[in-house]
């Protein structure tokens, strides 16, 4: 492997990326997935975490363009140069450009095009500070080599190179050590419409930020953004972190949202599972996504108004689905709504005051969960257990009582 002169690297572990526009050769969702998987290759062998942003300047700006495209290295039409990327740094540093005159594809078998995941993984190696390798078979080898990408693994030379720059991953593995039970191939959400080409903001100085740390399981001040069940397991979300509690394993697994759903943004407001549809919905601001296992269903994100919220509701605080009644309760401020999953519509007579039906739990609610005939409402570091039938408060506990503290 080799690095760039003076070994430029990102002076932080949390690196942002933004997809500026899309190639017409592929579905946007397939482009999102290819890019997200390419980042995941590198995050799985380093302490780096990649977060996708949808506006303003990101560390790594990704775009498609043909011929002259605003830097000194014009593309050369079909074939020849496929893409290039810049070493870590401010401004154009880290950016990756893909030649739109090539035919981009998510496949590796057909000769009709270049596999975007493979080329993106190579270019992002440059964006992180690796230069070319002369080891045939290494990802950073300069020549495109069609490869089966289904279980693509980095070559040891690539791993040696990137870990020489950033070291190995932190001990709590950023990757799930166990897959969710049944799995379909991942579908990614179609992200935003293509935006302007190469918005050139003034070069940003590198601001080494202190990377957020995952709170300890038994931190008495631990609070949550959202909680949901998923196929018999329970997932607790805070910022970009996930605590995974499974009936199949004793210990709590530590993951990141990125490792399960690379193209979802961190910091959910709410989440809930509709078990009989094998569907989990995530809410962030005025949008929501639906996933099934690792697969993000196409056509998302959607506006929360699609569910029947008035325009005055800009985000929800918490949500929980009652499997017995097939109703989902949405909590917003001091009120709550009831959504009929069968008719896919809000019930009449809502919103109602939370205090009217759930005495003693207060508001706003951070997260909500249904388990074993109880609702669990999380507010700050406290958790309120409510008997669903009687709608009566039965216990108050610490929010992280589920972590065997």
């Amino acid at each position: 492997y080799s690095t760039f002169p003076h070994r430029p690297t990102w002076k932080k572990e949390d690196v942002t990326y933004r997809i500026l526009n899309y190639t017409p050769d592929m579905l946007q969702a397939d482009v999102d997935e290819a890019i997200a998987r390419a980042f995941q290759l590198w995050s799985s062998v380093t302490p780096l975490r990649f977060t996708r942003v949808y506006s303003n300047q990101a560390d790594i700006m990704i775009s498609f363009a043909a011929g002259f495209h605003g830097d000194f290295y014009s593309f050369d039409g079909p074939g020849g140069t496929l893409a290039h990327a810049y070493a870590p740094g401010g401004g154009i540093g880290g950016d990756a450009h893909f030649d739109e005159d090539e035919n981009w594809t998510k496949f590796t078998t057909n000769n009709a095009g270049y596999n975007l995941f493979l080329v993106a993984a190579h270019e992002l190696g440059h964006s992180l500070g690796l230069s070319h390798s002369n080891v045939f078979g290494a990802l950073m080898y300069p020549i495109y080599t069609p490869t089966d990408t289904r279980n693509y693994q980095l070559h040891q030379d690539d791993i040696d190179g990137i870990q020489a720059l950033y070291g190995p991953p932190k001990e709590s593995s950023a990757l799930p050590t166990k897959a969710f039970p049944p799995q379909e191939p991942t579908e990614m959400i179609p992200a935003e419409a293509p935006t302007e080409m190469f918005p050139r903001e003034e070069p940003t100085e590198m601001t080494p930020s202190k990377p957020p740390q995952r709170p300890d399981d038994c931190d008495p001040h631990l609070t949550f953004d959202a909680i949901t069940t998923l196929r018999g397991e329970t997932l607790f979300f805070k910022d970009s972190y996930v605590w995974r509690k499974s009936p199949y394993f004793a210990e709590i697994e530590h993951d990141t949202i990125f490792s399960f759903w690379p193209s979802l943004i961190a910091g959910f407001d709410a989440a809930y599972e509709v078990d009989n549809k094998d569907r989990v919905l995530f809410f962030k601001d005025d949008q929501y996504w639906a996933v099934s296992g690792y697969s993000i269903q196409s056509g998302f994100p959607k506006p929360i108004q699609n569910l029947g919220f008035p325009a005055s509701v800009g985000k929800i605080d918490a949500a929980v689905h009652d499997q017995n009644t097939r109703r989902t309760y949405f909590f917003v401020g001091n009120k709550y709504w009831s959504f009929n999953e069968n008719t896919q519509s809000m019930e009449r007579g809502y919103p109602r005051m939370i205090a009217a039906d759930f005495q003693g739990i207060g508001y706003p609610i951070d997260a909500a969960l249904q388990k074993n005939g109880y609702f669990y409402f999380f507010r700050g570091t406290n958790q309120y257990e409510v008997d669903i039938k009687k709608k009566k408060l039965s216990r108050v506990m610490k929010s992280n009582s589920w972590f065997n503290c």
Partner: protein
Amino acid sequence: FPVAPEKEKEDMQFAKKYLENFYDFKEEKSLFKAKDLNHMSDKIREMQSFFGLEVTGELNHKTLDMMKQPRCGIPDVRS
């Protein structure tokens, strides 16, 4: 068969461009054509060595073939 002269010239141009892009080759306008070719041969050797080809310094078929492979636009060697 011997390569037709215009094809040879074309290949030489292509190779020069490739070496400029990826091997930091700078064509020196020197009075002595031989010197130019030597400098270019050195760069061809560098490229052949990077890709594990037989290092001859000559623009042979295999070397040209490798230059025509689709690739990344970042140089393999830089000053």
